[in-house]
């Protein structure tokens, strides 16, 4: 366990040593801040029947920033170690492959959580200034951020997998971006296909991140997405573990 912690701390620290982390942080704050600002100004123009929290988590801006950050966070995880050769001292130390894979995943996850923390302030400020509730209930906050954590978990694991497959960070970024958008649009297929049965439509709906966020940000906690994202993350991390081990045969 101590080795895992050591590895995890090194991963987290290395994020904050690299300029990419700060670029991602600034980019994300800019886009999410812009999102929030625009939603508030929409609300000022006409009466609406949803809360600022729902608007914030379901806008185009949100999704735009959302799918972009994952490749940026994960591309260097394994690729950089392969490229610099630091994988050699790392893996000749008495550490297990799964300790390395999990420490990289959770390192990225911690950074992801840090990325989201400042957005909580938006809602605090909103309530302070407008004296209006930012969400319908406490459950809506819980639901929105829970979905952020679940989706993040899944998309970060995809990024880990892409990075474990190549020593080229750009390739890793492009592959993970493609996979993530693929999964993202998979859930949107139901809006494109017109002549499909209701059952197919429902089935595709299970995979729709948009729909999940829609329900969760209203404070409705459906357990199906939880199972979906937890099991998908586990699966992709297992694949990452395999991909990481395959370095021995590919070299």
């Amino acid at each position, binding site marked *: 366990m101590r*080795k895992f912690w050591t590895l995890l701390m*090194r991963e987290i620290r290395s994020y904050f040593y690299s300029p990419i982390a700060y670029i991602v942080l600034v980019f994300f704050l800019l886009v999410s801040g812009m999102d929030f600002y625009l939603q508030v100004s929409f609300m000022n123009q006409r009466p609406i029947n949803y809360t600022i929290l729902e608007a914030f988590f379901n806008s185009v801006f949100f999704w735009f920033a959302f799918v972009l950050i994952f490749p940026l966070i994960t591309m260097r995880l394994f690729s950089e170690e392969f490229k*610099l050769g630091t994988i050699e001292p790392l*893996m*000749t130390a008495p550490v297990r492959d799964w300790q390395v894979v999990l420490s990289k995943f959770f390192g990225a996850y911690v950074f992801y959580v840090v990325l989201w923390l400042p957005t909580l302030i938006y809602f605090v400020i909103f309530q302070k200034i407008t004296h209006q509730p930012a969400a319908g209930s406490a459950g809506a906050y819980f639901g929105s951020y829970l979905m952020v954590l679940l989706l993040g978990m899944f998309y970060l694991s995809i990024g880990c997998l892409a990075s474990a497959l190549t020593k080229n960070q750009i390739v890793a970024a492009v592959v993970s971006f493609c996979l993530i958008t693929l999964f993202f649009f998979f859930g949107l297929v139901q809006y494109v296909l017109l002549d499909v049965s209701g059952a197919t439509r429902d089935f595709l709906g299970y995979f729709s991140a948009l729909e999940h966020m829609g329900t969760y940000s209203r404070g409705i906690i459906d357990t199906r997405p939880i199972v979906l994202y937890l099991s998908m993350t586990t699966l992709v991390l297992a694949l990452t573990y395999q991909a990481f081990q395959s370095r*021995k045969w590919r070299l």
Partner: protein
Amino acid sequence: MIKVENLTKRYAGHTAIKDLSFEVGRGEIMGFLGPNGAGKTTTMRILASFLPPTSGRASIAGFDVFHESLQARAHLGYMAENVPLYNDMRVTEYLDYRAALKGVPHRRVGERVGDVKELCGLREVEKKMISALSKGYRQRVGLADALLHEPDLLILDEPTIGLDPNQIRQVRELIKNLGKQHTILLSTHILPEVEMTCSRVIIIHHGRIEACDTPENLLGGIRQAGGVVVEAKTGNDDGVEELKKISGVREVSTDKEGEWKIFSLRVESGVDVRPEVFQLAAARRWSLRELTQRRATLEDVFVELTHPDEA
């Protein structure tokens, strides 16, 4: 300490090492020589559990490097070729991290990191970023890292490559001292270094072991076991004919420097022909200004074994 049996590693398209077998005993300093691409790094990487062998077995301190790799790695201090390091860390920070990773007990980390910094002369750069270190210091950080957990065995892949002569001397001294407590397997291209530090030498070529012996035995065993250089004014004599008559002399080649003739004699191993040369010179009234026995070096052994045609 190291036991290698019939180790073979094939990459797509070519075989890096073929059927390698050798043993390194506790307390030995084993030199691992061979031309570039001979399979040195591959062998060392297999021993460090970084690459799996295609066939064959290898063990470190009794632990199989493939099946019990964690225990094997725990007994091993490995320094990779070109010493890859995390550039975004500081020296002490990196060593602390590596110590924890290698399972050095918490309360001993400070002490061990201090010790290896002292031993490898890293005190003056301990607070520096690794990215700002010179090649020589990076090399020392790699060595310090390999020593952190007081491993029984050190595997060093070209520890002196890219260093200046002073640094090479320092590292050599360090390795010699380490050899008192550790078993060491080191690869290098600098042959005098091997002669000075290693108790045994393996020469590998095209993935096969060409020789495995002490440096003394290797030197004794080669065809071209040294020679004698004679510089003389031979007057009307040709010189070559007379010198060839001395028993033990196989071949004589000549060169000229003004009126002085320089004879290079190839002699059979174990024969000293210098007294005969001197007597010949005295008898024929040659003036002699040099009469030296050239010792064969490991370089000769290396060249003979790895380029048999040109030797």
